[in-house]
């Protein structure tokens, strides 16, 4: 009987494998050039107005924004380059922004790009008010003085040239797509100006893109005809796909395996700084973590150097607050908690808290979070704090965190990468007061912090230097309150087949491959 069960499973596995090959081999059979990207995470929503997860990988190939942000790792700043907008200017001290659209651009459904399409796209995102729609909060009015000009009137000054380059919620849709609902997009339809369009979406399995024949950028013969974004949650599978040539690009492989891949002549390991960081949110709404001294003691018990060293083979670096290097507003002098178990113990004793038992949740597929959690647990045990580790699926972990904070986890391991390149994005999403928690999963709430943050944000277009200083001061206020353990700034490590030409990582668009830039 048991053997029969095993045979059943083997048959199912066989069928699944056959399904994979049938989908990825289809293009090869037709003599078409296919790029296969192995992603460790699924794409929860393909609606460009509300998508706010790893789906940006698909969006960025099918849709475009008015501008694109190109970071400069050397200087830590960056430039805004034209995309759907050829040029732009601001007036009224950053309260009015005029974007002049590129001519001759058509959507994949054949409709021309015009000011009305841009206006309707932004309005759809604002109306749905999901995902990262907050990027449009300052926009009060959208005017279209002529077919190719869009004027954004703001309630307060904003660097809108950067805002419109966002990797989320800034995509421009065709007028026909604007009328569609979430279901239509997730069924595998798209309506963008990007070099590709969605051909088929198989949720949880893969998303297959085909070249957009109407693409305004034209078509180089050596570019790929199809892109398959293959979801491979298992890093072992992703690695073997890459090594055997079934995939051309992936990330999220164990750091321990990098040496092996570096020595493989068929593969290139591309290491860059990222705008991504790892934090451990502490539940500020639940005793005894509502006591700042208890949080301070926990922060001082964290094994920072061990986690950076062992967790990322030394490729990561200690975080100074929530804003990583490369993002303006980063504070290279910001105070860092240092590991000091004796002091942590005495601080904890002074608070009178005894027999402390905490629950920490982390994403069960993430080796770095697992390592950080286990090393922290071991350190805490030495000062008499018991930490229960709870590895969970991301959805379950997030659902628990979004429930009542009083019954939620004590500590939540969390990665953040920016919606667009601004310090505001980090501090707003992770630490500004929220009635219904979305990403502020330590439930930090401090009216003074909120007010300073908003003020710094509003200054960001009119007086960048003052704004930057204000962001730094606001972040220091945050650091002194220990709402989270700021663990590390992560490296971006992507592994690419060495016959792929033209690969450049842009950390402003986390783990996005701009497939049209590549050839084989």
């Amino acid at each position, binding site marked *: *009987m048991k053997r029969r069960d095993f045979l059943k*499973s083997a048959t199912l596995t066989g069928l699944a494998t056959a399904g994979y090959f049938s989908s990825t081999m289809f293009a090869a059979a037709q003599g078409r050039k296919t790029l296969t990207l192995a992603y460790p995470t699924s794409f929860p929503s393909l609606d460009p107005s509300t998508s706010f997860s790893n789906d940006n990988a698909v969006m960025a190939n099918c849709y475009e924004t008015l501008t694109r942000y190109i970071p400069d790792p050397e200087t830590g700043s960056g430039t805004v380059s034209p995309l759907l907008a050829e040029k732009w200017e601001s007036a009224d001290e950053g309260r009015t922004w005029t974007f002049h659209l590129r001519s001759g651009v058509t959507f994949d459904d054949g409709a021309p790009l015009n000011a009305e399409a841009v206006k309707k796209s932004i309005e759809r995102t604002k109306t749905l008010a999901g995902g990262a729609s907050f990027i449009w909060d300052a926009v009060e009015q959208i005017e279209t003085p002529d077919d190719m000009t869009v004027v954004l009137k703001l309630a307060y000054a904003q660097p809108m040239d950067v805002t419109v380059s966002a990797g989320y919620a800034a995509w421009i849709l065709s007028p026909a797509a604007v009328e569609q609902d979430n279901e239509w997009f997730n069924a595998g339809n798209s309506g963008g100006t990007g070099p590709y369009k969605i051909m088929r979406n198989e949720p949880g399995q893969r998303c297959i893109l085909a070249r957009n024949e109407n693409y305004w950028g034209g078509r180089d013969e050596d570019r790929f005809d199809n892109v398959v974004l293959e979801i491979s949650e298992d890093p072992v599978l992703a690695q073997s796909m890459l090594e055997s040539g079934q995939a051309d690009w992936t990330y999220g492989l164990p750091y*321990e395996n990098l040496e092996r891949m570096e020595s493989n002549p068929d593969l290139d390991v591309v290491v860059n700084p990222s705008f991504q960081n790892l934090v451990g949110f502490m539940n500020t709404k639940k005793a005894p973590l509502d006591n700042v001294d208890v949080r301070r003691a926990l922060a001082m018990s964290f094994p920072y150097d061990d986690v950076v*060293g062992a967790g990322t083979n030394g490729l990561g670096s200690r975080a100074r607050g929530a804003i990583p290097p490369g993002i303006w507003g980063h504070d290279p002098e910001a105070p860092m908690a240092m590991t000091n178990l004796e002091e942590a113990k005495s601080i904890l004793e002074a608070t009178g808290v005894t027999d402390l038992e905490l629950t920490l949740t982390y994403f069960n597929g993430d080796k770095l979070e*697992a*390592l950080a959690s286990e*090393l922290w647990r071991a350190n805490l045990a030495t000062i008499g704090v018991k930490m229960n*580790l709870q590895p969970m699926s991301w959805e379950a972990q997030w659902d628990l965190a979004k429930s009542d904070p009083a019954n939620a986890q004590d500590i939540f391991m969390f990665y953040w990468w920016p919606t667009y390149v601004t310090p505001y994005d980090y501090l707003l999403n992770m630490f500004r007061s929220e009635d219904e928690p979305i990403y502020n999963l330590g439930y930090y709430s401090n009216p003074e912090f909120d007010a300073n943050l908003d003020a710094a944000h509003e200054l960001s277009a009119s007086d960048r230097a003052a704004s930057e200083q204000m962001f730094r001061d606001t972040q220091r206020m945050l650091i002194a309150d220990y709402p989270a353990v700021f663990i590390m700034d992560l490296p971006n490590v992507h592994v690419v087949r060495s016959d792929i030409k033209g690969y450049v990582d842009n950390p402003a668009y986390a783990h996005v491959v701009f497939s049209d830039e590549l050839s084989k």
Partner: protein
Amino acid sequence: MNTAISRLGVAGSIALGVICLFLLAIIFAPYVAPFPEQGVGDPNIASRLLPPSPEHWLGTDAFGRDILSRVIYGGRVSVTIGVTVVIIGLCIGLPVGIVAGYSGGWIDETLMRITDVFLAFPALLLAVLVAAALGAGMWNCIIAISISWWPWYARMARSEVLVLRGQPYVEAAQVMGVSHPVILVRHILPAVFRPLSVQGALDFGPALLTGSALSFLGLGVRPPTADWGEMVNAGRAVFPDRWWIAVMPGLTIFIIALAFSMLGDAVRDAEKSGSHDH
């Protein structure tokens, strides 16, 4: 000399020896394991990913923990899961099977159809579904496997009772007016218990293997508790460069499951030859 051990044969005796050694090791784990604190879960970052050596016979894992110590401590979890699953399975399956077989009629039909519902699902798949619904953790893992385990005992108990029901001593008791519960408990249960307890002992290996399968899938014990299935899974990602992390606990599962299987065959053979003797 016709002792129990000699009736097991060479293979059975070796298997029994391996199992006894294994049980001794896990009972005296704090004394046997070279690094007991690492067996319990303490990391040792300075010794990460070391290959097998005289200091660490089976190497170390990504947390620098001695794999031999983890394997020994992981055995405690595996044995707990194996024993508890079989006991819970018997506690549910035995009464259901006895009542069904003895009562007959609609009670038998109802109980057996319920049993069939559970048997209709592949055992491992059912356990995975239940464990996924309950969440990770050793006790949830035990509940999940037990739910897929008891129907076999119910079936077996029922078929034994169907034979016993027609035996003269049972019919005599019925004629003498002894109540059904008393007949069940005093006359039927002891007769059914023996073959089922042998089967239960033989099932210990498969139950342990299922527990390892669940923890391999991330549905077993919570870290940092050592568990063989979880250890294999953790080592998979860095295989083949650090093969020992997955291979050592995998080999342990293989040896122990094989030992139980061989012992089971030997006991069955011994039972058969025993019954021929009489």
